[in-house]
């Protein structure tokens, strides 16, 4: 009995000349919460498409729920549920009709289907909206409905591609709570892709991907331990002090309007800095290693630049077509 829900071995994929995935290898244990973390364009969606058999890899193999995605895609599909990044609900049908469609397509018989529909709608707390047309749903409600739909046929693995994009913080939290509960209650394996670092703190395994390559794969604590960098957040007293600091420590970078962040992994360097600038700082704070810093130290780049959030919100608004 295999305890790995998903095994990916040396998978490569390219769009024309551009390489999207480069010899990706990873293992997702059954029943775990697995987060695939990386910036936009890292290859996350491509990998998900391969794992849910929408696309064939150009090289390598992938085994999902015990079935090879190339040779036995149909069998793989029976055990997976997918929530896509772009909403794939039918706006003109009711929630119930959307779920019924799904149930029929997966071959469920009438009575178990109806029972399951009621059950999943209660699970995501959309029971009151069973017979409303989906067009009237908010972004968060749609996501919840899509999660409910993906679970209707009781899959073993749930794929979620950027599930919280375009949602406000409170809804995001709620969705992650559902997912955790589901995992525990139904022994589900959940694989999510995201570029929101703060959301993967609770995952069992975080896999960092950039430019189509896997950079690291471990639990969040292990990653922070190995690659995380403690940093020093300071607010200089004046602009001149800030200038000086930046000159002396090129690896410092700005944070907000006034603050500066300086890596503090080497005690000697930290001591030297404090010695030199202590009097010219109004605020000093040590920051424990974050995944952000893990990413930074592994790739030398920020995971998200400031504009990402705005871009996401714009995209979500565009998809809604300007409607609310």
């Amino acid at each position: 009995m295999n305890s790995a829900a998903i095994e990916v071995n040396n998978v490569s994929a390219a769009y024309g000349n551009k390489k999207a995935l480069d010899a990706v290898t990873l293992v997702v244990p059954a029943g775990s919460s697995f987060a695939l973390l990386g910036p936009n364009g890292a290859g996350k969606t491509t990998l998900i498409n391969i794992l849910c058999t929408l696309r064939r890899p150009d090289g390598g193999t992938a085994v999902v729920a015990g079935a090879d995605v190339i040779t036995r895609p149909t069998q793989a599909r029976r055990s997976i549920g997918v929530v896509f990044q772009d909403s794939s609900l039918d706006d003109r049908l009711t929630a119930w009709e959307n779920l019924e469609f799904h149930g029929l397509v997966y071959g469920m018989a009438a009575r178990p289907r109806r029972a399951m529909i009621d059950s999943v709608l209660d699970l995501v707390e959309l029971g009151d909206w069973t017979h409303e047309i989906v067009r009237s749903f908010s972004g968060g409600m749609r996501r919840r409905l899509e999660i409910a739909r993906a679970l209707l046929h009781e899959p073993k693995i749930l794929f979620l591609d950027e599930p919280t994009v375009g949602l406000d913080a409170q809804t995001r939290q709620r969705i992650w709570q559902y997912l955790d509960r589901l995992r525990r209650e139904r022994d589900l394996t959940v694989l999510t892709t995201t570029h929101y670092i703060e959301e993967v703190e609770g995952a069992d395994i975080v896999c960092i991907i950039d430019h189509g390559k896997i950079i690291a794969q471990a639990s969040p604590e292990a990653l922070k331990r190995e690659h995380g960098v403690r940093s020093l957040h300071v607010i200089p007293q004046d602009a001149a002090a800030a200038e000086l600091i930046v000159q002396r420590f090129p690896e410092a970078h700005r944070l907000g309007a006034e603050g500066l962040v300086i890596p503090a992994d080497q005690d000697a360097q930290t001591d030297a800095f404090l010695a030199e600038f202590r009097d010219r700082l109004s605020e000093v704070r040590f920051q424990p290693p974050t995944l952000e810093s893990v990413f930074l130290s592994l790739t030398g780049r920020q995971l998200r630049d400031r504009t990402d959030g705005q871009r996401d919100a714009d995209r979500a608004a565009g998809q809604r077509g300007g409607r609310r």
Partner: protein
Amino acid sequence: MSPIILLRGIYAIWLREITRATRDRAQLIGGVSRPLIWLLILGVGLNPYFRGEVYGEVRFVIPYTYLQFLFPAVIVLNIMYTSIQFAVSVIWDREFGFLREVLVSPMPRPLILLGKVLGGSTIAMIHGGLVLILARFADVTLTLGQMFVALGLMFVLAFGLTSFGVLLAARVRSFEGFGVFSNTIILPLYFASSSVFPLDPALTRTQMVTAYPEWLVFLVQINPITYAVDALRGVLIGFNQFPPTYGWAVIAAMAVVFFLVALIDFSRS
């Protein structure tokens, strides 16, 4: 997978299309407005040019009035438009929307396409059936039997045309482009199908060629829509310009051939 499971899937896909089409009142009215306009305005407007003025001299020598002649052709035009439009939505679905949800399910690709095409054909048949209500206006009398046969013919014709549309739509990248494309295909096919002007069956080929240019006569004779319109005329007003079996054979052949090709194309992408 057991047949019941597969049937459930096809049913789901078919049901969704029907539900969407019948809930959209604007789309329904838009769908019948085209034949309405053709019949009401073209048929009535052109009437004075086609009615008899002097016995023995009629520009249009077939044993029916122009409106009767035009009526089945208007239905076929409607089916053409409905089928092609539906095909566009299939491709749209696949690229951007809902169909992805079906593509990750265990439903086999051929059956997904089948469900879609069946849905589209049913919708086209409903639209065509609504136009049959105008039969009284065009002085076409219909028995119940005729209506059923006509609806069946419309369904099979729509099946072929929808599959053809899926083939076309998969080739064209943008949707604006597709609109232009479809108009350059639909309208010429339609006009070159002896739909609006009849080729006098009493004329031999040489005589026909004196009345119309050679290339037009040729186009009309190789155009499958010509035979489709002819078959529907045979059912609705009992008039055939060509041997009646041709029309049915062409319609059936289109349905089978286009569906199979669309299937191969769809499964590959």
